[in-house]
């Protein structure tokens, strides 16, 4: 999988690159509008991470170019502006998702994987792991071929863990992914722990072969 990061802030660019390389992606970067245009017209990417506010042009015009050339690269807009208008405009121009700075890298990872999964034409929107299969279309978990009912949040938690497997997930990244922005730092997210406990119990009951490890005060890690 080939990714292009279009971002003028070097710090952010380096962070994303370092994180995503670990996911076995081929990552290229562009720091301004012109070099991004050059790369986009020369190569095809599976996913473009696009900053809207570039020094020499708007990321949105790059989207327009992609659209006019009928390129099918997936685009995730990354913006410092948490503005609905930008978001709507971007999505209308064919962007697949929208992420506001600052974001958790685990969240970025989940978004990229979701976009890539959807892109796999004809393919089923599922992730397989050991003896499990997470079906995003039916929102159901299968262990050894048996359907296991998970409620909305349990499913989201498990999905987030699986796409970020073998990584330490900071608790607020998980909370924001599952419960949304509104939950912010409500009581230090201790309430998540009981959710995870229930999920672990369910997974164990059905013989799922994975382990969710809690790191006190920090977060969780799914090890396979």
């Amino acid at each position: 999988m080939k990714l292009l990061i279009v971002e003028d802030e070097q710090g952010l660019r380096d962070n994303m690159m370092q994180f995503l390389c670990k996911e076995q992606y081929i990552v290229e970067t562009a720091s301004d509008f012109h070099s991004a245009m050059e790369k986009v017209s020369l190569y095809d990417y599976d996913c473009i991470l696009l900053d809207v506010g570039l020094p020499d042009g708007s990321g949105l015009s790059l989207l327009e170019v992609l659209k006019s050339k009928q390129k099918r690269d997936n685009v995730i807009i990354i913006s410092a502006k948490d503005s609905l208008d930008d978001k709507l405009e971007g999505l209308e121009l064919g962007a697949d998702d929208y992420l506001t700075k600052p974001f958790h890298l685990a969240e970025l990872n989940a978004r990229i994987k979701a976009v890539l999964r959807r892109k796999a034409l004809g393919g089923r929107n599922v992730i397989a792991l050991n003896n499990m299969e997470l079906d995003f279309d039916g929102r159901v978990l299968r262990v050894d071929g048996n359907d296991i009912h998970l409620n909305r949040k349990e499913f989201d938690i498990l999905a987030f863990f699986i796409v970020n497997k073998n990584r330490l997930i900071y608790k607020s990244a998980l909370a924001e992914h599952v419960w949304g922005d509104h939950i912010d730092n409500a009581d230090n997210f201790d309430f998540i722990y009981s959710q995870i406990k229930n999920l672990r119990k369910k997974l164990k009951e059905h013989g799922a072969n994975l382990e969710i490890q809690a790191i006190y005060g920090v977060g969780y890690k799914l090890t396979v």
Partner: protein
Amino acid sequence: MKLLNHTLLYLSASLIFILSIWAVVFYFSMMDEVYDSIDDGLENYKILIIKKAHQDTSLLNKRNFGESNYAIRPIKREWALRATEVFKDTAMYMEYEEEFETVRMLTTYFSTRNDRYYELKIIASMVEEDDLVADLLHALLWLYLAVIASAFIINNWVLRKIWRPFYQLQNELRGFKLGEDNVFSPPQTRVTEFRDMNDTVAALLKANIAVFQNQKQFIENVSHELQTPLAIALNKLELLLEQVQGEDAQVQLLANAIQHLERMTRLNKSLLLLSKIENQQFSKEERVDFNARLRQQIEDFGELLQYKRINLEIREEAQLNVLFNVDLADVLIANLLKNAIVHNHDGGSIRVRVTDNGFEIANTGRAQPLETDKLFTRFYRPTDHASSTGLGLAVVNAIAQRYHARVAYQYEGGLHHLSFRFIN
């Protein structure tokens, strides 16, 4: 006291004084004229009588006034030579009035050709001074009342007309809100003083609006500029967190640093949100079903409620469908709900009530009322909640102002009530 009454008060006080002085002066000058005219008449009469006495000596025997108004009596020569002509007021019985009245009497002396000397007294009836004074006072009182009444009417009319620009300005200022109105247009007037005042007020407000805008712009810019460095720092720490796994103490330190950076991020986001609400950047509106949104968010907070063993009851007394921005509606509900959960104790309760003009969230918590006047100000934190930004209720308040609604706090029956009501 109104300006009109002030003028009237000063006017009536000074008029009493001026009219009194005027009355005294008028009285004396009038009396002077009256005496002058009567005395002239008496002089004239004297000459006529003396002339007639020379021709008709029988006149010289008229000792009493009787039916006519003069009397003559002979006197000694040396006395007559020594005496001078005298006008004086004296009293005399008036048959008509049946009482003594003041009369003017001229006492004079003359001699006939045969060297006899006579004293001649002539009287003329006088104005009755007590009646005159009474009449004058009466007239004065009426004059005074008439002047005050007309001053009142004219003043009322003139002031109302002249001061119209002032009242217009007053009205404009009363409706003016810094931060909401970006222009101020004072009423047009041709009166120099008012025009000066209008210009001064307009200039003052313009400067204030500019300062306010600058300050707002500054907060917005700062928050915006902080986003990127915050994002970089947070992500770097996340990367570092992955690398130091296993080193428990270091992991804890990093997690702690992330926690504080996240708090800063939230603070920053809230400040940006406040700026945006105040700048009316949430302009898109649609019918928002508050009942459904409340139920949805209560469900979203379900795990948190369960974890804190908080019992939440929702009572929907009416359907609340209002033209509102959806995102702001969510922020509003989330902030109020989160508030009720975070500042609650384990095993507490929350009551949500939806009425036709708003909704109310009541929760258990600290057993003492909060400081109502500070509650909605930025960075007010009644409890030492490390994670709270102190901006939640400020955001709620900003949303309320944006939609002409009122947020109110009340501590009643051991519950903290926060209500959001639309005014109309």
